[in-house]
């Protein structure tokens, strides 16, 4: 049997063999994966749900390395999406080195990326959507789980208007939201006014009276069925992101209200009830077991690309990945208001295989034209792969932390554990667009402050509990905060307050002293009035000075107590 190490050597050899003719490899990929293959689907039943989410404003194809560390805790340990790399390949019987291995996992990512090219691009998605709608006229619903308006240079400049135009053009039928709220109350209201489809957030109330602030449910007629779509925004938006930007609104999981909406939809004749959610996969897995009458949950937030539907009781959970890498297709056969059969495919959008839709391509070009010179501005080059996604520091986070330490003259850097942000391959230029794809937020101030060792530990324990609390309803945020200038150990199986140990200041190799003060730089504070230059300016000036960036993976965090299936050695 081929061991992982052997495989890496074989893969390396193959890379060498094709290295001089990389374009041949790409050409081969284009011929082996065709648009027709990607669309191949044995249609079933009366309704087709098309789903994506967490596109983070990406209009263009990109590389996005799926996580190598995504640890499941409590009841979720070892279950998808808490499988990474080879564990995904094994669980879903995916051949190493195949297009699916490249799309769904981080296994041998850097070499496979060169073979198979980028994924996504809204013009490619538009082509697939149009083809499926033509195949299933009057039977198709296109649903977006949110995190649509934020994440790129253009979306930040346009304050989300670019994405509203693009999604109207794509013909989305409904969306819910999370980061979209970070443009603030007034802008959200303006953008919702421009949408040509409903903005469903059934779990958002006004803070004064507790009235539901948005439409929660919309009933569509498709394929002779009444399909109820209930929207569920990210329940912890005012905690994970600044509450001061959206003081009028309060969020929450509101299980009972989800049940009420499902019951009301059934009572008004719905044959199929769909929850369009930004809860995160583990929250939805728990929710699915505690509410009845929801047939399908289209999940979002945690960016998981799960190649099969996950059944919880009678509810099917779909996880469609992020950044426009995938389009999910779920065909459903409904008899007497019950799903009796389904067929699912998570379609990887191989950008070289799919013909761009001309109208969407033109719209994207029009959106980008005023900013093209800035988008293409080259700040430097990277000699090593830069990525973010994973429970702990990615190399792009290391770069941001290095910039904070140097530019803000700090001993320790903290960088948020966002799940968004594409990957740059070794040898690629770092353009302004690439930098903003990691940093484009509406509260970008890079602060500089002293913190005691005790306060630092308390903050890290708090954030770790938001990720590793065994009850998913207590998981609030993104991945673990990224650190620079600091190493530590974490036992993810321990309760809050006991997970973090061995905190060490890298500058002198000394243990962090609880009573001593340290100069800490960071960004994305949710506090109003945070002072400091915007993070994109800080990293930009650092990269421009460095010119060539070289960040091999660092071993800053020693992880114990983790389910091993959530940790993979990846390329």
């Amino acid at each position, binding site marked *: 049997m081929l061991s992982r190490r052997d495989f890496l050597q074989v893969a390396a050899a193959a890379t060498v063999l094709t290295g001089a003719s990389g374009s041949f490899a790409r050409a081969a990929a284009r011929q082996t994966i065709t648009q027709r293959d990607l669309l191949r689907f044995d249609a079933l039943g009366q309704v087709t749900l098309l789903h994506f989410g967490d596109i983070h404003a990406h209009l263009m194809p990109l590389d996005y390395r799926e996580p190598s560390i995504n640890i499941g805790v409590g009841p979720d340990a070892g279950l998808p999406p808490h499988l990474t790399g080879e564990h995904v390949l094994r669980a879903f019987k995916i051949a190493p080195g195949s297009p699916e291995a490249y799309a769904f996992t981080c296994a041998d990512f850097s070499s496979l990326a060169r073979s198979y090219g980028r994924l996504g691009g809204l013009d490619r998605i538009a082509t697939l959507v149009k083809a499926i709608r033509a195949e299933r006229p009057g039977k198709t619903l296109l649903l977006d789980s949110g995190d649509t308006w934020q994440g790129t240079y253009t979306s930040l400049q346009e304050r989300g208007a670019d994405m509203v135009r693009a999604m109207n053009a794509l013909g989305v039928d409904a969306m819910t939201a999370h980061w979209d709220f970070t443009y603030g109350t007034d802008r959200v209201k303006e953008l919702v006014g421009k949408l040509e489809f409903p903005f469903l957030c059934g779990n958002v109330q006004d803070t004064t009276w507790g009235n539901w602030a948005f439409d929660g449910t919309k009933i569509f007629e498709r394929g002779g069925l009444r399909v109820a779509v209930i929207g569920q925004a990210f329940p912890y938006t005012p*905690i*994970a992101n600044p509450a001061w930007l959206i003081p009028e609104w309060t969020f929450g999981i509101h299980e009972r209200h989800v049940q009420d909406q499902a019951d009301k939809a059934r009572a008004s004749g719905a044959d199929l009830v769909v929850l369009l959610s930004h809860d*995160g996969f583990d929250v939805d897995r728990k929710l699915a077991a505690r509410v009845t009458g929801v047939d399908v949950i289209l999940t979002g937030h945690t960016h998981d690309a799960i190649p099969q539907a996950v059944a919880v009781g009678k509810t099917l959970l779909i996880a469609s990945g992020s950044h426009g890498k995938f389009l999910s297709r779920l065909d459903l056969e409904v008899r007497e208001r019950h799903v009796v059969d389904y067929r699912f495919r998570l379609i990887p959008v191989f950008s070289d295989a799919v013909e761009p839709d001309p109208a969407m391509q033109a719209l994207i070009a029009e959106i980008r034209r005023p900013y093209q010179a800035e988008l293409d501005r080259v700040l430097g080059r990277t000699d090593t792969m830069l990525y973010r996604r994973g429970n702990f520091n990615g190399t792009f986070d290391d770069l941001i932390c290095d910039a904070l330490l140097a530019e803000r003259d700090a001993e320790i850097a903290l960088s948020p554990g966002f799940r968004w942000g594409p990957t740059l391959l070794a040898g690629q230029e770092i353009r302004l667009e690439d930098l903003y794809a990691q940093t484009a937020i509406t509260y970008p101030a890079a602060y500089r402050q002293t913190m005691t060792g005790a306060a630092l530990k308390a903050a890290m324990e708090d954030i770790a509990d938001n990720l590793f609390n065994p009850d998913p309803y*207590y998981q609030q*945020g*993104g991945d673990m*905060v990224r650190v620079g200038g600091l190493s530590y150990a974490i036992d993810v199986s321990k309760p809050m307050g006991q997970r973090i140990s061995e905190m060490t200041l890298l500058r002198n190799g000394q243990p962090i002293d609880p009573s001593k003060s340290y100069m800490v730089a960071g960004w*994305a504070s*949710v506090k109003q009035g945070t002072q400091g230059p915007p993070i994109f300016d800080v990293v930009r000036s650092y990269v421009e000075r460095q010119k060539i960036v070289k960040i091999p993976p660092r071993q800053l965090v020693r992880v114990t107590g983790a389910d091993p299936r959530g940790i993979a050695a990846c390329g």
Partner: protein
Amino acid sequence: MSNDPRVLPAMTRRDLVLAAGGGVLATLVAGLFPLPASADPNDVKKWLSTVASGTPTPGKITIGAPDIAENGNVVPITLSVDSPMTEQSYVKSIAIAADGNPLPGVAIVDLSPANGKAEVQFRMRLAKTQTVTAVALMNDNSLWSAAKTIKVTIGGCGG
């Protein structure tokens, strides 16, 4: 369990305010004297035992509260007790305690059949992540309890 502040749709905040004027007697327990850093589960037990003697049985009370507070200074809490609230069977009072605030006792709410419904809604300050315990004293002198951990986090890192 529900986080929905409108658990009983008939009871709006306005009704509650009116109800408070018309019969609910709430006692705010925390006073203005030197405070320890925080109470602990034993302090909660001790305080509850001064309010009602006996061992409560888990059940009958629902604590409607967020799993994670959006703002620890004003955490919305809805307590409802499964009771017909008739002369024959009603909730006499509900005591609320928290083990992470400087003092364990938060409030004692006295009710009568005139309230019609055993539900109270209020905002509570939580200094840090902690467990909120509620004990209901019924007119037959039985005691019922419920507890819920509410997380108060520094936030950020939003996915």
